[in-house]
């Protein structure tokens, strides 16, 4: 028994190396952007105006004057549905993206999608519970818990990704201990491991208009432009007054903001 286990232990790394090299080869073949025939573009707004961090002041629904300083969110588990109902599921381990306002590169998702006529895009805002509990070596890129903290999108005291972060200054707030009139919304929570807890993962479904289906071909690039409206965080199902809730992090109230962000996205245009 001892020897059998030892043997297994001996060959497991070899097997892992083989799998990883294959996975690596697969990723490498996809590095060339010319292969990508679909661009999903996230354009961040506050209401009708493009979102510009730290420069512009925006008026919220409650008349609050807001200067956003940070706006980031995870988009994952993308699925494209064809006109005939068939679905293309983006390979699960390559389906995690951190969109950061102010970093143009991060706002563009490039995919290689089979040719066809597409009518719908689904994704989730956040990181699914399965990936959130996987071994750390399965969480690379934007999900690397040892590197992701530099983007401040991970809680180490309560293991889990922060799905969306919205911070800024609000004229109506008193000066806090950092000497600023600052609000901080850090929304996360995948539902808990051994006991049910907050689940702020939200599904987003964007159907394309019938006269504007997405036609994808092998060598022709198509683009889906999506509006992400930060003002909706404060004005979806729940009207959120920043002055009353300047800090929303891991707590029951975060669920209301999550319900709001599920309607934050809308389709701007489809082009090909």
């Amino acid at each position, binding site marked *: 028994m001892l020897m059998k286990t030892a*043997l297994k232990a001996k060959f497991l790394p070899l097997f892992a190396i083989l799998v990883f090299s294959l996975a690596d080869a697969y990723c490498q073949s996809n590095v060339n952007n010319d292969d990508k025939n679909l661009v999903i573009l996230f354009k961040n707004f506050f209401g009708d105006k493009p979102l510009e961090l730290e420069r512009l002041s925006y008026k919220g629904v409650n008349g609050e004057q807001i200067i956003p300083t940070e706006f980031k969110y995870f988009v994952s588990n993308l699925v494209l549905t064809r006109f005939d109902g068939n679905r293309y599921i983006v390979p699960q381990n390559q389906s995690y993206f951190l969109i950061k306002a102010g970093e143009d590169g991060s706002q563009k998702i490039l995919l290689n999608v089979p040719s066809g006529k597409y009518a719908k895009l689904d994704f989730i805002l956040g990181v699914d519970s399965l990936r959130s509990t996987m071994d*750390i070596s399965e969480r690379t890129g934007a999900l690397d818990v040892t590197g992701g903290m530099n983007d401040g999108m991970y809680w180490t*005291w*309560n*293991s889990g990704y922060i799905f969306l972060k919205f911070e800024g200054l609000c004229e109506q707030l008193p000066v806090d201990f950092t000497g600023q009139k600052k609000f901080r919304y850090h929304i996360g929570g995948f539902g808990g491991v*051994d006991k049910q*807890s*907050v689940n702020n993962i939200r599904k987003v479904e964007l159907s394309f208009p019938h006269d504007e289906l997405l036609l994808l071909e092998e060598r022709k690039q198509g683009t889906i432009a999506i509006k992400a409206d930060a003002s909706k965080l404060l004005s979806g199902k729940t009207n959120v007054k920043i002055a009353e809730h300047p800090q929303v992090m*891991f707590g029951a109230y975060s669920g209301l903001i999550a319900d709001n962000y599920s309607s934050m996205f809308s389709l701007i245009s489809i082009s090909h």
Partner: protein
Amino acid sequence: MKGHHLASLFFLMFVFVAYRQIPSGVFEKPVNFPKPIYRIQNNNISREKVALGRALFYETLLSRDNTISCGSCHVQSSAFTQHGHDISHGIDDRLGNRNSPPIMNLAWNRTFFWDGGVFDLDLQALSPITNPVEMDEKMENIIAKLSASHKYSEGFQLAFGSREISGIKVIKALSAFMLTCVSSDAKYDSVMRHQSKFTKMEKSGFRIFRQKCAACHAEPLFTDGSFRNNGLSNKFNPDSGRVAITLDPKDRYKFRVPSLRNLSFTLPFMHDGRFKNIDQVLEHYSHGISDSPTLDPLLRRAEFMGIPLTSKEKHELKSFLKTLDDRHFITRKDLSENFNPKR
């Protein structure tokens, strides 16, 4: 005949591989322990990885100003706790708000920290490394510092087959080392393995333990890993424990049941280190329980609040608890900072 040769050749290979894979000091499950919870299949615990993890555990470059290591606050002679500190004491003399728990038998932990906010050993070390009141450093800086020191490239090469340093490798190596911090050589363990016998008094204490303590402090790890409100007064410390993680009001003032192994080396006790010795703890259970809506039902009985214990029983219980002290664990050379396998 040829088949026989082949069979013996395979047998020799088996023996060779088995011998190489199970060197001393690498993780082994004690015979009287259950199956580990840590997913060992995701972290091959080789001698080389443990050696790298040990070096990193005692490496001050892991802190912002290069002054403290994991080992600074988790001292082996105190069963890897911060001896004499009620609450943890970190960088720049900053104080945490809870007592630093021992690093022992972590392979059997379902969750980590007093409130169970972390569910995987591989996610645990990130917390003290980045916490502003502990080591206050970023993994990005640690990688740069380790790469610049040149001391580590061979260690990473041997442990991972490449000199390249990454955050995930640092964490996996730290986990590998911490997994070898197994305490299973207390007198209790040798009694369970029929290698020695309890004295009369220890035996009486063991009987009282099984009757009055084992429901939470389950053998052989001496914790069931659950979260309970054990009736500590929250008059001065507002820390509400587990509820911060689950947001369930029923979890208010609940903390993880700590193991009773190595009590002689891990004082003070409780999540905020409020009790200086075991006598105070026993006094708390027999006469000091504060009632609140989430108090553990085992401590709220119609006829008595807490656990009734006569002074004779306390004496016997203490005698048994001493059999959970593992001197081998706190003196094992392979867990110490200066271990040199070549010597």
